[in-house]
Structures are given as C-alpha cells and as structure tokens.
C-alpha cells in the first residue's frame, strides 16, 4: 500500500453536505473507504451521487463537513489530492479534436509526467483498453463506447491510488461492460481504491465490497451487498403477471400469504414479497387464482439488491407523502 494513505483509509468523509440555494443536494454524508476496496454509491438520478464525487475530487466545495482523499484534505490541500486521484465523470471529458493518444499524452503532461513517460503510458493504456488500433484517430469519430473507454484510460494515466468513476458503464454494450468490470478488478487487486456510482444494482453487486445507498441526498443504507440483502429481504416470492392491470390485485393476494408487504416492479410486470420458512408456494398459487390473477411465473428466490433498493426508496417516498 502507498505510504501516503494512513490508517488504511483511502477516502473519508464526515458530515459532508452541499446546498444549492435552499436545496441540500447532499447531507450528513459519512464515509470510510479502506484502501484497496471498492465502494459502490447507489441511487437514482438526483440522489446526490455526482455531488459527492464532485466534492471528493475537489471540483466542488462542500457547504458543510469535510473529507480527505489519500490522506489529504479536499478543501485545504486540493493540489496533492489531484495528484493522487483519477476521475471519470458522467459527461465525456476527452477532447474530440485530438487523437486518442494525443488526449492521453496531454493528460500525462498535465500530471507533470516527463514527455517520454507520458507517451509510454498513453501507448500502454490504449493497448490495455483495446484502443491501440484507433490511437491515431480523432476522438470525435469514436463511438460512445470507445469514448467511455478512453475516458477511463484518461483517469488511469497517473496510475492513481484512488479512482472515482461516475456511472462508468452507462452507454456501454454488455461486452464492453464486462471488460471494464474485469479491468477494475485487476486494478483493485493491484491496490487501487475505487469509488464508483451506479444506477445498476447488478454492477454494485458484482464489484462493490461495500454499498452506500443514497436517497434524496441522504444515506439511506450502508453495508456489504450480502448484509443489505439479508437486512431487507432474505428469501422472497416473486410473481410475474401478463398485464399491468393485474399488478395491484396480485400484490394484494400475495400479501395475504407472504411474510410481509409486497413490492411492485411495474417495469418488469413483477410483484414480490418476503417469504418465511412456513410460506408455501401452493398457498401463493391458490391465493392468486382466487383473486383472478393469471400468473405466468411464481417462484422463490434470494433477495436481490433490486429488492433492497425498491424497499428503501419506496419507504422514503411514503415518509414524504404527509409533508408534501
């Protein structure tokens, strides 16, 4: 591990907050990310994920609280922080009028690498991200996926000990996404600390050692993927219905026999509810049939992060209703 990361904590935040006007985009944000681990910051659009990343990467000033990255305070000593981080933002941050290698060399120079080293690094990263064939092409002619990969390469130029990735796989095809995941795993094996935001629960499940779930700017839950699943689910019974109109009826029928409140996932035409040891599938099918629900699939499964996510963000919506 690198000397500058003390006590094994690569990213720390305490009471971090950011207010725009009257609106808190992020509030009471506490975080401790051990060096060499992956933290997944999970949440809907506008939950505060990007705000957190912008503060931790010195792009935005916090309104409250403080944070340190790689042992340096993000407000008091932004310069050493910038030397130790790599950032891939949501928006493309590469120059369309430069070649891929031109972009990486320029970034290497701005990290104050000697020209020769910057050139070698650029070639190495292009090779690693399967962009070597297109290294001399103008980036404006790149596909969205190639741009994303180049963006990631750009954040790796200085082999930074701490890496921030804001929705790194958005817009990538499944193959590129799997490659990126594999690459991130090698980086983490080499000791890199990664903080990534994502809207994809599968991504957090696959990559993150710990997850922080953000909802309306506040932390709604933290834990390992397994802990979150256990805390908010355990086993569940899932029912698929052929038409959206049957969702509510199916939820009602399921709740009568299941061990808790049912969640509706309208997009997937799916209703699920926690199951206990004594919940029997035959009873579920009977209840559904009595309610006139024409279920296309009924099965028992382990809770997924989707369930956790839905359960937590739903309950916060319910809490908000009376105040609005």
């Amino acid at each position, binding site marked *: 591990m690198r000397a500058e990361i003390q006590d094994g904590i690569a990213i720390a935040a305490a009471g971090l907050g950011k207010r725009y006007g009257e609106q808190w985009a992020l509030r009471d944000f506490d975080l401790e990310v051990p060096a060499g681990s992956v933290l997944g910051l999970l949440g809907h659009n506008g939950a505060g994920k990007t705000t957190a990343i912008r503060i931790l990467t010195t792009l935005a000033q916090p309104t409250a609280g403080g944070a340190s990255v790689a042992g340096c305070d993000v407000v008091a000593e932004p310069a050493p922080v910038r030397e130790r981080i790599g950032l891939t933002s949501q928006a493309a941050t590469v120059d369309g*009028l430069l070649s891929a290698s031109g972009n990486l060399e320029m970034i290497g120079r*701005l990290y104050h690498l000697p020209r020769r080293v910057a050139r070698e690094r650029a070639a190495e990263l292009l090779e690693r991200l399967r962009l070597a064939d297109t290294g001399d092409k103008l980036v404006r002619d790149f596909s969205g996926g190639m741009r994303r990969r180049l963006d990631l390469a750009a954040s790796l130029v200085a082999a930074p000990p701490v890496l921030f990735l804001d929705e790194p796989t958005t817009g990538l095809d499944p193959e590129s996404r799997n490659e990126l995941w594999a690459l991130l795993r090698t980086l983490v094996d080499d000791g890199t600390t990664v903080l990534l935001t994502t809207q994809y629960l599968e991504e957090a499940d696959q990559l993150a050692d710990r997850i922080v779930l953000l909802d309306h700017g506040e932390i709604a839950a933290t834990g390992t993927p397994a802990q979150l699943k256990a805390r908010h689910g355990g086993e569940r019974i899932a029912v698929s219905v052929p038409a959206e109109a049957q969702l509510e009826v199916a939820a009602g029928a399921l709740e009568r026999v299941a061990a808790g409140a049912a969640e509706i996932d309208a997009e997937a035409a799916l209703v699920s509810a926690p199951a206990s040891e004594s919940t029997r599938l035959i009873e579920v099918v009977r209840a559904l049939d009595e309610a006139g629900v024409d279920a296309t699939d009924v099965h028992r499964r382990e809770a997924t992060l989707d369930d956790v996510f839905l359960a937590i963000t739903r309950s916060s919506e319910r809490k908000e209703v009376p105040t609005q």
Partner: protein
Amino acid sequence: MTATTLPRTAAGPARLRWLLADSATIAGRSFAHIRQIPEKLFDVTLQPLMFVLLFSFVFGEVIAVPGGGDYKEYLIGGILVQTLAFGMMGPGVSMATDLGEGILDRFRSLPMLRPAFLLGHLTAEFAASVLAVAIMVLTGLIVGWRTDSSPAEAIGGFALTALLAVTTLWLGTLIGVIARSPDVVQGIAFLVIFPLTFIATTFVPITGLPDGLRQFAEYNPVSAWAAGLRTLFGNPTATPADAAWPLAHPVLSSVLWCVAILAVVVPLTLHAYRRRTTG
C-alpha cells in the same frame, strides 16, 4: 501496470516551471485543434488579407486623405485595429466551447496549475494574432504601405499593436466566459465590433461625419488606436485640427485605453471564470 511515481507538489521556482509547462501543454492543444480545423485560422489569415486588398483597391482611388498622403498608408493602421478587434472572437469562441463541455472537469481534476488553462489559451490566441499582423504587414508592404518614422517609433508601433492584441484577447475571453454558447459569442462580438470599428477613423477620415457621430468617433478608442499606430508608423492620420483630446494625443490615449480596459476586464474575467468553474 507500471507504477508511476508522481512528482510531489512543489513551490517557488518549480511552481513557475510547471505553470509554464502546463500553459504550453494547453497552448499545444489549441495548435493541435488548428491542425484539425484549419478554417479556424481564416479570420486571422484570409480575412485581413482580403480587407487590405479590398479597401486599398476599391476605396484607394476615391478617398482623399485630408491634409495629404496616400490612402494605402492611411489604411493599414485602421485595418490592424479592426483585425485585432475581430480577433477577440477566437478566444471567445474557444473559451465558450470548452466551458460548455465536460473537458474542464477533467482539467480541474488534474494537478495542472490553475492559471495555466487561461494562460495557455491566451498564448495560443496571441500567436494567432501575431500571424494575422504579419500577414497584414506583408500585404501592406506589397500594396505600397511604408513606415515613415524612426526605427524606435516603428518598434513602438508594433509594441502598441501587441498591447492592443492582448487587450482584445482578454475582452474576447471575458465574453467567452460569460456567454452561454459559442454562437452567443459571435453575436455579441459582431454587435460590439461593427459599430465601434465603423464609427471611427478606421477606414475613412472622420471630417465628413455628421454631428453626434463625429463626437462619438473622436472619443471612440478605436479611433485613438488607429491614429496611435499611424502616428508611430509615420503614416498620415488626417486628424482634424480641432479634434478632441484623445484623438489629438493618440499614442498616450491608446495606451491609457488599453491599460484601463485591462484593469477592468482581467479581474472581471478571473472572477467570472472562477464562478463558472467552481460549483
């Protein structure tokens, strides 16, 4: 992956060295853009060439310079000012473009020194201005323009040209930083540059202007700059005997205008730039 040891944050001379190196890297980026889109240089290459030729051959024969002298000799001072004024669009457009895209987030997350972004931009744009001035001077020499002053005065003329270039580049940068998009920059620049350069001594002597316009022209900094350059190059100025103070003392008032504009525009630009780039 090879471990890359980063240089530690430094102070003093190393800081200055890095500021220069970072600015050079950013300027290099602008030059690389020009290699990709050579049309970017039209306004500082073909346009001045065209203006010198058009005005000297179309107006040259019909416009008499009051107090005597050749119109081509009179013209160059004005065209230099006009071209440098249009030169503010370069930094304006490139700054507005960069600020509208995500690339600035990338730069701001890097350990490059903060002022290097603006400095690099200005360096590249200044190089473009030097190219424009060189083209105009050469074209001028071909059509018959000559300096008729001491070498020291002529050098002073080029020094004033450089000061004026810096002034307009900062003005353009300010417009670029406050504009919402590159198109807005072009709009603002045209609205400002056209009236200012035409209601002035730029192309025609102001003696024939109606009341009101003539007073505007006499106090217009563009008139002072054109007359200042003409004076230093030893070209006819056609300044009326009863001209207002700025036009009667064109070299001094030119420098004062530049200093005054820079004194306002530089801090304003830095303030607006900081506001736009720190959230």
